[in-house]
Protein backbone atom coordinates (compact mmCIF):
# COMPACT_ATOMS: atom_id res chain seq x y z
CA UNK A 1 0.00 0.00 0.00
CA UNK A 2 2.63 2.59 0.97
CA UNK A 3 4.90 1.27 -1.80
CA UNK A 4 2.23 1.86 -4.44
CA UNK A 5 1.46 5.37 -3.20
CA UNK A 6 5.09 6.41 -3.02
CA UNK A 7 5.78 4.98 -6.45
CA UNK A 8 2.94 7.07 -7.87
CA UNK A 9 4.26 10.20 -6.19
CA UNK A 10 7.76 9.50 -7.50
CA UNK A 11 6.32 9.22 -11.00
CA UNK A 12 4.46 12.53 -10.72
CA UNK A 13 7.01 14.57 -8.74
CA UNK A 14 10.35 12.75 -8.98
CA UNK A 15 12.42 15.75 -7.88
CA UNK A 16 10.26 16.82 -4.91
CA UNK A 17 12.12 16.45 -1.63
CA UNK A 18 10.73 13.59 0.46
CA UNK A 19 13.02 13.82 3.49
CA UNK A 20 15.47 16.43 4.69
CA UNK A 21 17.76 15.69 7.63
CA UNK A 22 20.84 17.56 8.79
CA UNK A 23 23.01 15.29 6.63
CA UNK A 24 20.72 13.89 3.92
CA UNK A 25 18.20 15.10 1.40
CA UNK A 26 16.24 12.47 -0.53
CA UNK A 27 13.80 13.17 -3.34
CA UNK A 28 10.82 10.90 -3.99
CA UNK A 29 12.69 9.43 -6.90
CA UNK A 30 15.75 8.66 -4.74
CA UNK A 31 13.55 7.16 -2.06
CA UNK A 32 12.01 4.76 -4.56
CA UNK A 33 15.38 3.89 -6.10
CA UNK A 34 16.74 3.07 -2.63
CA UNK A 35 13.65 1.01 -1.86
CA UNK A 36 14.07 -0.97 -5.08
CA UNK A 37 17.72 -1.65 -4.29
CA UNK A 38 16.74 -2.65 -0.73
CA UNK A 39 14.11 -5.06 -2.03
CA UNK A 40 16.79 -6.60 -4.23
CA UNK A 41 19.12 -7.03 -1.23
CA UNK A 42 16.31 -8.68 0.74
CA UNK A 43 14.84 -10.78 -2.05
CA UNK A 44 15.38 -14.07 -0.22
CA UNK A 45 13.10 -12.88 2.61
CA UNK A 46 9.80 -13.35 0.78
CA UNK A 47 7.17 -15.07 2.88
CA UNK A 48 8.97 -14.40 6.17
CA UNK A 49 8.38 -11.86 8.88
CA UNK A 50 11.18 -9.27 8.77
CA UNK A 51 12.35 -6.99 11.56
CA UNK A 52 13.43 -3.42 10.79
CA UNK A 53 15.85 -1.54 13.03
CA UNK A 54 16.97 1.86 11.76
CA UNK A 55 18.04 5.09 13.35
CA UNK A 56 18.09 7.01 10.04
CA UNK A 57 14.58 7.98 8.92
CA UNK A 58 15.59 7.84 5.21
CA UNK A 59 16.77 4.26 5.64
CA UNK A 60 13.70 3.29 7.65
CA UNK A 61 11.33 4.52 4.96
CA UNK A 62 13.28 2.89 2.14
CA UNK A 63 13.29 -0.48 3.92
CA UNK A 64 9.59 -0.30 4.85
CA UNK A 65 8.62 0.61 1.29
CA UNK A 66 10.78 -2.26 -0.01
CA UNK A 67 9.22 -4.79 2.37
CA UNK A 68 5.72 -3.54 1.56
CA UNK A 69 6.41 -4.00 -2.15
CA UNK A 70 7.52 -7.58 -1.38
CA UNK A 71 4.33 -8.26 0.56
CA UNK A 72 5.99 -9.42 3.79
CA UNK A 73 4.95 -8.79 7.40
CA UNK A 74 7.22 -6.36 9.25
CA UNK A 75 8.18 -5.70 12.86
CA UNK A 76 9.30 -2.10 13.40
CA UNK A 77 11.82 -2.16 16.25
CA UNK A 78 12.32 1.07 18.23
CA UNK A 79 15.03 3.24 16.67
CA UNK A 80 16.47 3.89 20.12
CA UNK A 81 16.79 0.19 21.02
CA UNK A 82 20.25 -1.21 21.73
CA UNK A 83 21.72 -4.21 19.89
CA UNK A 84 20.99 -6.32 22.99
CA UNK A 85 17.36 -5.18 23.10
CA UNK A 86 16.95 -5.91 19.39
CA UNK A 87 18.38 -9.41 19.86
CA UNK A 88 16.08 -10.03 22.82
CA UNK A 89 12.98 -8.76 21.02
CA UNK A 90 13.88 -10.75 17.93
CA UNK A 91 14.05 -13.94 19.92
CA UNK A 92 10.75 -13.18 21.72
CA UNK A 93 8.97 -12.47 18.45
CA UNK A 94 10.78 -15.28 16.59
CA UNK A 95 12.33 -12.96 14.03
CA UNK A 96 15.05 -14.53 11.94
CA UNK A 97 16.00 -11.44 9.90
CA UNK A 98 16.42 -7.82 10.96
CA UNK A 99 17.10 -5.34 8.15
CA UNK A 100 19.13 -2.40 9.44
CA UNK A 101 21.14 0.65 8.45
CA UNK A 102 23.59 -0.09 11.29
CA UNK A 103 26.90 -1.75 10.50
CA UNK A 104 28.60 -2.07 13.87
CA UNK A 105 31.12 -4.85 14.45
CA UNK A 106 28.59 -6.80 16.50
CA UNK A 107 26.15 -6.81 13.63
CA UNK A 108 28.85 -7.94 11.22
CA UNK A 109 30.19 -10.61 13.59
CA UNK A 110 29.58 -14.30 12.91
CA UNK A 111 26.82 -14.37 15.47
CA UNK A 112 25.22 -11.10 14.28
CA UNK A 113 25.23 -12.20 10.64
CA UNK A 114 22.57 -14.79 11.36
CA UNK A 115 20.09 -12.15 12.41
CA UNK A 116 21.11 -8.77 10.99
CA UNK A 117 21.00 -7.76 7.36
CA UNK A 118 22.81 -4.43 6.91
CA UNK A 119 21.42 -2.64 3.87
CA UNK A 120 23.76 -0.81 1.52
CA UNK A 121 22.11 2.51 0.68
CA UNK A 122 24.78 3.64 -1.72
CA UNK A 123 23.18 1.34 -4.29
CA UNK A 124 20.18 2.56 -6.22
CA UNK A 125 17.79 0.40 -8.22
CA UNK A 126 15.62 1.20 -11.20
CA UNK A 127 12.51 3.12 -10.28
CA UNK A 128 10.54 1.23 -12.88
CA UNK A 129 10.60 -1.93 -10.80
CA UNK A 130 7.15 -3.29 -10.21
CA UNK A 131 5.42 -3.86 -6.90
CA UNK A 132 3.46 -7.03 -7.46
CA UNK A 133 2.56 -8.14 -3.98
CA UNK A 134 1.40 -4.98 -2.37
CA UNK A 135 -1.47 -5.58 -0.01
CA UNK A 136 -3.03 -3.49 2.72
CA UNK A 137 -3.62 -6.46 4.99
CA UNK A 138 0.02 -7.31 5.74
CA UNK A 139 0.90 -7.13 9.40
CA UNK A 140 2.91 -4.18 10.69
CA UNK A 141 4.04 -4.75 14.27
CA UNK A 142 5.20 -1.79 16.34
CA UNK A 143 5.82 -1.11 20.00
CA UNK A 144 3.89 0.98 22.50
CA UNK A 145 5.85 3.87 23.98
CA UNK A 146 6.15 2.25 27.39
CA UNK A 147 5.63 5.54 29.27
CA UNK A 148 4.01 3.60 32.08
CA UNK A 149 5.38 0.10 31.61
CA UNK A 150 7.33 -2.21 29.32
CA UNK A 151 6.90 -1.44 25.60
CA UNK A 152 4.45 -3.98 24.15
CA UNK A 153 4.31 -5.14 20.53
CA UNK A 154 0.97 -4.45 18.86
CA UNK A 155 -0.20 -5.56 15.43
CA UNK A 156 -1.43 -3.03 12.91
CA UNK A 157 -1.68 -2.96 9.12
CA UNK A 158 -0.71 -0.03 6.86
CA UNK A 159 -4.44 0.49 6.49
CA UNK A 160 -5.13 0.91 10.23
CA UNK A 161 -1.97 2.99 10.66
CA UNK A 162 -2.88 5.39 7.88
CA UNK A 163 -6.55 5.72 8.88
CA UNK A 164 -5.76 9.08 10.47
CA UNK A 165 -3.96 10.47 7.41
CA UNK A 166 -5.77 13.44 5.94
CA UNK A 167 -5.69 13.60 2.14
CA UNK A 168 -7.49 16.96 1.91
CA UNK A 169 -5.81 19.12 -0.80
CA UNK A 170 -4.77 21.69 1.81
CA UNK A 171 -2.38 19.10 3.25
CA UNK A 172 -0.77 18.15 -0.07
CA UNK A 173 2.88 18.98 -0.71
CA UNK A 174 3.54 20.64 2.66
CA UNK A 175 6.55 20.59 5.01
CA UNK A 176 6.20 18.44 8.15
CA UNK A 177 8.32 18.25 11.28
CA UNK A 178 9.26 14.82 12.61
CA UNK A 179 9.81 15.51 16.30
CA UNK A 180 8.81 12.03 17.45
CA UNK A 181 10.88 8.89 17.23
CA UNK A 182 10.41 7.70 13.65
CA UNK A 183 9.46 4.17 14.77
CA UNK A 184 6.81 5.16 17.33
CA UNK A 185 3.10 5.26 16.54
CA UNK A 186 3.15 9.07 16.65
CA UNK A 187 6.26 9.25 14.45
CA UNK A 188 4.75 6.85 11.93
CA UNK A 189 1.60 8.99 11.81
CA UNK A 190 3.68 12.04 10.94
CA UNK A 191 5.77 10.46 8.19
CA UNK A 192 2.81 8.60 6.70
CA UNK A 193 0.89 11.88 6.53
CA UNK A 194 3.83 13.56 4.82
CA UNK A 195 4.65 10.65 2.51
CA UNK A 196 1.10 9.91 1.38
CA UNK A 197 0.43 13.57 0.54
CA UNK A 198 3.70 14.16 -1.33
CA UNK A 199 5.05 16.29 1.51
CA UNK A 200 8.56 16.94 2.72
CA UNK A 201 9.56 15.46 6.06
CA UNK A 202 11.96 17.69 8.04
CA UNK A 203 13.97 15.76 10.62
CA UNK A 204 15.98 17.58 13.30
CA UNK A 205 19.45 16.24 13.98
CA UNK A 206 18.56 15.60 17.59
CA UNK A 207 15.10 15.68 19.05
CA UNK A 208 16.09 18.42 21.44
CA UNK A 209 13.87 21.48 21.64
CA UNK A 210 16.41 24.11 20.70
CA UNK A 211 17.71 22.21 17.63
CA UNK A 212 14.09 21.67 16.64
CA UNK A 213 13.26 25.35 17.01
CA UNK A 214 16.18 26.20 14.70
CA UNK A 215 14.96 23.67 12.15
CA UNK A 216 11.41 25.07 12.26
CA UNK A 217 12.86 28.40 11.18
CA UNK A 218 15.50 27.13 8.75
CA UNK A 219 13.27 24.72 6.81
CA UNK A 220 10.16 26.89 7.22
CA UNK A 221 8.19 23.92 8.53
CA UNK A 222 4.43 24.32 8.18
CA UNK A 223 3.03 21.42 10.19
CA UNK A 224 4.56 20.43 13.50
CA UNK A 225 3.45 17.83 16.00
CA UNK A 226 5.09 17.13 19.37
CA UNK A 227 4.28 16.36 22.98
CA UNK A 228 3.15 19.15 25.35
CA UNK A 229 6.37 18.69 27.37
CA UNK A 230 8.42 19.19 24.21
CA UNK A 231 6.52 22.33 23.17
CA UNK A 232 6.93 23.79 26.65
CA UNK A 233 10.71 23.40 26.44
CA UNK A 234 10.80 24.68 22.87
CA UNK A 235 9.02 27.89 23.85
CA UNK A 236 11.73 28.54 26.41
CA UNK A 237 14.66 27.76 24.15
CA UNK A 238 14.07 30.56 21.62
CA UNK A 239 12.64 34.05 22.03
CA UNK A 240 9.09 34.75 20.82
CA UNK A 241 10.59 37.30 18.46
CA UNK A 242 12.65 34.57 16.76
CA UNK A 243 9.68 32.21 16.76
CA UNK A 244 7.53 34.81 15.02
CA UNK A 245 9.59 34.13 11.87
CA UNK A 246 8.33 30.55 11.74
CA UNK A 247 5.97 29.53 8.94
CA UNK A 248 3.84 27.22 11.07
CA UNK A 249 0.22 26.92 10.00
CA UNK A 250 -0.63 24.01 12.27
CA UNK A 251 0.66 22.96 15.68
CA UNK A 252 -0.38 19.59 17.02
CA UNK A 253 0.06 18.30 20.55
CA UNK A 254 -0.25 14.65 21.43
CA UNK A 255 0.88 11.92 23.76
CA UNK A 256 0.16 13.73 27.02
CA UNK A 257 -2.69 15.76 28.48
CA UNK A 258 -2.55 19.45 27.50
CA UNK A 259 -2.98 22.26 29.99
CA UNK A 260 -4.51 25.62 29.24
CA UNK A 261 -1.43 27.68 30.12
CA UNK A 262 0.60 25.89 27.43
CA UNK A 263 -2.11 26.40 24.79
CA UNK A 264 -2.17 30.10 25.68
CA UNK A 265 1.64 30.41 25.48
CA UNK A 266 1.69 28.66 22.10
CA UNK A 267 -1.01 30.96 20.83
CA UNK A 268 1.02 34.00 21.91
CA UNK A 269 4.18 32.66 20.24
CA UNK A 270 2.46 31.48 17.02
CA UNK A 271 -0.68 33.64 16.70
CA UNK A 272 -1.38 32.50 13.12
CA UNK A 273 -1.07 28.77 13.68
CA UNK A 274 -4.04 26.52 14.31
CA UNK A 275 -3.65 24.65 17.61
CA UNK A 276 -4.85 21.07 17.76
CA UNK A 277 -4.49 18.49 20.45
CA UNK A 278 -4.96 14.89 19.56
CA UNK A 279 -6.06 11.89 21.56
CA UNK A 280 -4.41 8.77 20.19
CA UNK A 281 -2.60 5.68 21.33
CA UNK A 282 -0.57 2.94 19.71
CA UNK A 283 -3.37 0.49 20.45
CA UNK A 284 -6.42 2.54 19.46
CA UNK A 285 -5.03 4.76 16.74
CA UNK A 286 -6.04 8.39 16.38
CA UNK A 287 -9.35 8.75 18.23
CA UNK A 288 -10.24 12.43 18.21
CA UNK A 289 -8.78 15.90 18.07
CA UNK A 290 -9.68 19.28 19.54
CA UNK A 291 -8.93 22.59 17.80
CA UNK A 292 -10.78 25.26 19.78
CA UNK A 293 -7.70 26.31 21.72
CA UNK A 294 -9.12 24.99 24.99
CA UNK A 295 -7.80 22.17 27.19
CA UNK A 296 -9.93 19.02 27.48
CA UNK A 297 -12.69 18.21 24.98
CA UNK A 298 -16.33 19.16 24.53
CA UNK A 299 -18.83 16.96 26.37
CA UNK A 300 -20.73 16.64 23.09
CA UNK A 301 -17.96 14.25 21.95
CA UNK A 302 -19.57 11.67 24.24
CA UNK A 303 -22.45 11.43 21.78
CA UNK A 304 -20.97 12.55 18.47
CA UNK A 305 -21.52 9.94 15.74
CA UNK A 306 -19.15 11.75 13.36
CA UNK A 307 -16.07 10.89 15.45
CA UNK A 308 -13.98 7.89 14.36
CA UNK A 309 -14.63 6.37 17.78
CA UNK A 310 -17.26 6.24 20.51
CA UNK A 311 -16.44 7.57 23.96
CA UNK A 312 -17.90 6.91 27.38
CA UNK A 313 -16.89 7.52 30.96
CA UNK A 314 -16.63 4.28 32.92
CA UNK A 315 -16.22 3.42 36.55
CA UNK A 316 -14.00 5.77 38.61
CA UNK A 317 -14.07 8.30 35.78
CA UNK A 318 -11.92 6.27 33.37
CA UNK A 319 -12.29 7.19 29.70
CA UNK A 320 -13.36 4.22 27.59
CA UNK A 321 -13.16 4.08 23.82
CA UNK A 322 -14.61 2.00 21.03
CA UNK A 323 -12.43 2.80 18.04
CA UNK A 324 -12.72 1.83 14.40
CA UNK A 325 -9.06 2.58 13.81
CA UNK A 326 -7.80 0.22 16.38
CA UNK A 327 -4.87 -2.16 16.11
CA UNK A 328 -5.55 -5.73 15.00
CA UNK A 329 -4.41 -7.04 18.38
CA UNK A 330 -1.49 -7.57 20.71
CA UNK A 331 1.26 -9.82 19.44
CA UNK A 332 0.50 -13.43 20.45
CA UNK A 333 2.14 -14.27 23.76
CA UNK A 334 2.93 -10.57 24.40
CA UNK A 335 -0.50 -9.48 25.58
CA UNK A 336 -1.09 -6.89 28.21
CA UNK A 337 -0.04 -8.15 31.60
CA UNK A 338 -3.03 -7.75 33.86
CA UNK A 339 -1.69 -4.77 35.84
CA UNK A 340 -2.92 -1.82 33.86
CA UNK A 341 -6.22 -2.64 32.20
CA UNK A 342 -7.23 -6.17 33.08
CA UNK A 343 -10.56 -5.98 31.32
CA UNK A 344 -9.14 -5.26 27.88
CA UNK A 345 -9.79 -8.57 26.22
CA UNK A 346 -9.10 -6.98 22.91
CA UNK A 347 -11.50 -7.06 20.03
CA UNK A 348 -12.72 -4.60 17.48
CA UNK A 349 -16.17 -4.49 18.96
CA UNK A 350 -15.13 -4.16 22.58
CA UNK A 351 -14.61 -1.06 24.66
CA UNK A 352 -11.04 -0.24 25.57
CA UNK A 353 -10.34 1.09 29.07
CA UNK A 354 -7.74 3.76 28.40
CA UNK A 355 -6.34 4.20 31.91
CA UNK A 356 -6.92 7.95 31.50
CA UNK A 357 -9.10 9.53 34.16
CA UNK A 358 -11.44 12.36 33.17
CA UNK A 359 -13.71 14.77 34.97
CA UNK A 360 -16.72 16.64 33.64
CA UNK A 361 -16.91 20.36 34.46
CA UNK A 362 -19.98 21.97 32.87
CA UNK A 363 -19.92 21.16 29.15
CA UNK A 364 -16.25 20.18 29.01
CA UNK A 365 -14.37 16.97 29.83
CA UNK A 366 -10.88 17.38 31.32
CA UNK A 367 -8.08 14.88 31.74
CA UNK A 368 -7.04 14.59 35.37
CA UNK A 369 -4.38 11.88 35.20
CA UNK A 370 -3.54 8.24 34.63
CA UNK A 371 -5.36 5.66 36.70
CA UNK A 372 -2.06 3.96 37.51
CA UNK A 373 -0.54 7.25 38.70
CA UNK A 374 -3.30 8.23 41.09
CA UNK A 375 -1.76 8.95 44.47
CA UNK A 376 -3.50 7.63 47.56
CA UNK A 377 -2.85 9.84 50.58
CA UNK A 378 -4.37 8.06 53.56
CA UNK A 379 -7.38 7.03 51.47
CA UNK A 380 -7.83 10.37 49.69
CA UNK A 381 -7.12 10.35 45.96
CA UNK A 382 -4.80 12.87 44.38
CA UNK A 383 -4.49 13.22 40.61
CA UNK A 384 -0.97 14.37 39.67
CA UNK A 385 -2.39 16.55 36.88
CA UNK A 386 -4.27 18.76 39.37
CA UNK A 387 -1.11 19.42 41.36
CA UNK A 388 1.02 19.80 38.22
CA UNK A 389 -1.40 22.39 36.82
CA UNK A 390 -1.09 24.43 40.02
CA UNK A 391 2.72 24.22 40.14
CA UNK A 392 3.30 24.90 36.44
CA UNK A 393 1.46 28.20 36.86
CA UNK A 394 4.13 29.46 39.29
CA UNK A 395 6.58 31.85 37.55
CA UNK A 396 10.03 30.22 37.31
CA UNK A 397 8.72 26.67 36.78
CA UNK A 398 9.57 25.13 33.40
CA UNK A 399 8.42 21.52 33.86
CA UNK A 400 7.01 19.60 36.76
CA UNK A 401 6.28 15.99 37.52
CA UNK A 402 4.16 14.99 40.49
CA UNK A 403 4.23 11.47 41.88
CA UNK A 404 3.42 9.49 44.99
CA UNK A 405 6.19 8.86 47.46
CA UNK A 406 5.86 6.12 50.08
CA UNK A 407 4.91 7.23 53.56
CA UNK A 408 5.07 5.02 56.63
CA UNK A 409 1.99 6.74 58.05
CA UNK A 410 -0.32 7.58 55.16
CA UNK A 411 0.62 5.03 52.50
CA UNK A 412 1.67 7.74 50.07
CA UNK A 413 2.31 11.47 50.08
CA UNK A 414 2.52 13.87 47.17
CA UNK A 415 5.99 14.73 45.92
CA UNK A 416 6.97 17.09 43.13
CA UNK A 417 10.07 17.25 41.00
CA UNK A 418 10.55 20.63 39.38
CA UNK A 419 12.75 21.76 36.53
CA UNK A 420 13.14 25.53 37.05
CA UNK A 421 13.85 28.07 34.36
CA UNK A 422 17.60 28.66 34.52
CA UNK A 423 18.86 31.21 37.04
CA UNK A 424 15.81 30.94 39.24
CA UNK A 425 16.53 31.09 42.97
CA UNK A 426 15.46 27.67 44.23
CA UNK A 427 14.57 28.56 47.80
CA UNK A 428 12.35 31.44 46.71
CA UNK A 429 10.78 29.18 44.11
CA UNK A 430 10.11 26.49 46.71
CA UNK A 431 8.34 29.03 48.90
CA UNK A 432 6.31 30.33 45.95
CA UNK A 433 5.29 26.80 44.92
CA UNK A 434 4.25 25.86 48.42
CA UNK A 435 2.26 28.99 48.89
CA UNK A 436 0.48 28.53 45.52
CA UNK A 437 -0.35 24.93 46.43
CA UNK A 438 -1.59 25.87 49.89
CA UNK A 439 -3.86 28.51 48.42
CA UNK A 440 -5.26 26.49 45.53
CA UNK A 441 -5.23 22.86 46.63
CA UNK A 442 -6.62 20.73 49.41
CA UNK A 443 -4.16 19.95 52.21
CA UNK A 444 -3.58 16.36 51.15
CA UNK A 445 -2.72 17.54 47.60
CA UNK A 446 0.10 19.82 48.75
CA UNK A 447 3.51 18.24 48.06
CA UNK A 448 5.29 17.03 51.18
CA UNK A 449 8.52 17.11 49.22
CA UNK A 450 9.70 19.37 46.42
CA UNK A 451 12.97 18.60 44.70
CA UNK A 452 14.69 20.45 41.87
CA UNK A 453 16.52 19.02 38.91
CA UNK A 454 18.26 20.35 35.78
CA UNK A 455 16.34 18.21 33.33
CA UNK A 456 13.34 15.96 33.79
CA UNK A 457 13.82 12.71 31.85
CA UNK A 458 12.04 12.18 28.52
CA UNK A 459 11.45 9.06 26.53
CA UNK A 460 12.63 9.11 22.88
CA UNK A 461 9.17 10.26 21.81
CA UNK A 462 9.34 13.41 23.92
CA UNK A 463 6.98 12.29 26.68
CA UNK A 464 7.97 12.95 30.25
CA UNK A 465 8.88 9.65 31.86
CA UNK A 466 6.37 9.08 34.61
CA UNK A 467 7.32 5.88 36.24
CA UNK A 468 10.96 6.03 37.18
CA UNK A 469 10.80 7.91 40.46
CA UNK A 470 7.66 6.29 41.84
CA UNK A 471 9.57 4.15 44.28
CA UNK A 472 12.85 6.00 44.20
CA UNK A 473 11.91 8.79 46.59
Amino acid at each position, binding site marked *: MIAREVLNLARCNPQSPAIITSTERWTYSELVESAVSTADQLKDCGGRQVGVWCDRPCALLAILIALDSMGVDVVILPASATVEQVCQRSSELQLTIVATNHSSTHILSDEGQHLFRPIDFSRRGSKRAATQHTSSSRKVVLFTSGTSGQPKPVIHTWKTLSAGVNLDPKYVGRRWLLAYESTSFAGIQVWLQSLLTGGCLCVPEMRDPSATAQLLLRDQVEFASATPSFWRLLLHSVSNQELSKAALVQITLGGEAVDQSLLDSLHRAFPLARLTHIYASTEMGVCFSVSDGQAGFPATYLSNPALPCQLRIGAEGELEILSRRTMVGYFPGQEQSSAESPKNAFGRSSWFATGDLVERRNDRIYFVGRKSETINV*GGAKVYPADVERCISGVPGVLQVRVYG*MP*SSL*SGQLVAAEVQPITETDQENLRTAILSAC*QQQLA*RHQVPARITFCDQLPFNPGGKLLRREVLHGA
Partner: protein
Amino acid sequence: MNAKLNPLDAVSRAIQRVLSNSGRAGQVLKDEDSLFEAIGLDSLDLAQIVVALEQDLGVDPFRKSGAPIRTFGDLVRAYQKELEMLE
Protein backbone atom coordinates in the same frame (compact mmCIF):
# COMPACT_ATOMS: atom_id res chain seq x y z
CA MET B 1 20.86 13.55 56.07
CA ASN B 2 22.68 15.15 58.98
CA ALA B 3 23.54 12.73 61.77
CA LYS B 4 24.84 15.50 64.00
CA LEU B 5 21.49 17.29 64.03
CA ASN B 6 19.95 17.19 67.50
CA PRO B 7 16.65 15.21 67.35
CA LEU B 8 14.95 17.60 69.77
CA ASP B 9 15.70 20.61 67.57
CA ALA B 10 14.90 18.75 64.36
CA VAL B 11 11.53 17.48 65.62
CA SER B 12 10.58 20.90 67.06
CA ARG B 13 11.48 22.62 63.85
CA ALA B 14 9.56 20.15 61.67
CA ILE B 15 6.43 20.53 63.85
CA GLN B 16 6.70 24.32 63.87
CA ARG B 17 7.05 24.36 60.09
CA VAL B 18 3.85 22.36 59.61
CA LEU B 19 2.01 24.49 62.19
CA SER B 20 3.12 27.73 60.57
CA ASN B 21 1.92 26.48 57.16
CA SER B 22 -1.58 26.46 58.57
CA GLY B 23 -1.23 29.68 60.57
CA ARG B 24 -0.70 28.01 63.95
CA ALA B 25 2.90 29.06 64.59
CA GLY B 26 4.45 30.08 67.88
CA GLN B 27 3.33 27.29 70.23
CA VAL B 28 5.77 26.26 72.96
CA LEU B 29 6.17 22.50 72.73
CA LYS B 30 6.37 20.61 76.01
CA ASP B 31 7.47 17.01 76.54
CA GLU B 32 4.07 15.80 77.77
CA ASP B 33 2.02 17.57 75.04
CA SER B 34 0.01 15.03 73.09
CA LEU B 35 0.65 15.38 69.37
CA PHE B 36 -3.00 15.33 68.31
CA GLU B 37 -5.01 16.93 71.15
CA ALA B 38 -2.56 19.40 72.70
CA ILE B 39 -0.47 20.40 69.70
CA GLY B 40 -3.35 20.03 67.28
CA LEU B 41 -1.71 17.94 64.57
CA ASP B 42 -3.68 15.50 62.46
CA SER B 43 -2.52 12.32 60.75
CA LEU B 44 -1.64 14.14 57.53
CA ASP B 45 0.48 16.68 59.46
CA LEU B 46 2.29 13.86 61.20
CA ALA B 47 2.91 12.00 57.91
CA GLN B 48 4.45 15.17 56.48
CA ILE B 49 6.57 15.77 59.57
CA VAL B 50 7.89 12.20 59.41
CA VAL B 51 8.82 12.58 55.75
CA ALA B 52 10.62 15.86 56.44
CA LEU B 53 12.47 14.33 59.38
CA GLU B 54 13.52 11.35 57.30
CA GLN B 55 15.22 13.82 54.99
CA ASP B 56 16.83 15.72 57.89
CA LEU B 57 17.82 12.81 60.12
CA GLY B 58 17.86 9.85 57.75
CA VAL B 59 15.60 7.65 59.88
CA ASP B 60 11.88 6.90 60.19
CA PRO B 61 10.80 5.30 63.50
CA PHE B 62 7.34 4.52 62.10
CA ARG B 63 8.71 1.96 59.67
CA LYS B 64 8.78 -0.64 62.42
CA SER B 65 6.59 -1.12 65.46
CA GLY B 66 7.97 0.15 68.75
CA ALA B 67 6.81 1.93 71.87
CA PRO B 68 3.61 3.95 71.27
CA ILE B 69 4.24 7.53 70.20
CA ARG B 70 1.63 9.80 71.75
CA THR B 71 3.40 12.93 72.94
CA PHE B 72 6.00 15.37 71.67
CA GLY B 73 8.50 13.73 74.08
CA ASP B 74 7.66 10.24 72.73
CA LEU B 75 8.36 11.46 69.21
CA VAL B 76 11.71 13.00 70.10
CA ARG B 77 12.78 9.84 71.98
CA ALA B 78 11.73 7.61 69.10
CA TYR B 79 14.12 9.53 66.85
CA GLN B 80 16.88 9.50 69.49
CA LYS B 81 16.53 5.73 69.76
CA GLU B 82 16.63 5.23 66.00
CA LEU B 83 19.74 7.40 65.71
CA GLU B 84 21.49 5.58 68.58
CA MET B 85 20.89 2.30 66.81
CA LEU B 86 22.70 3.68 63.78
CA GLU B 87 25.84 4.44 65.76
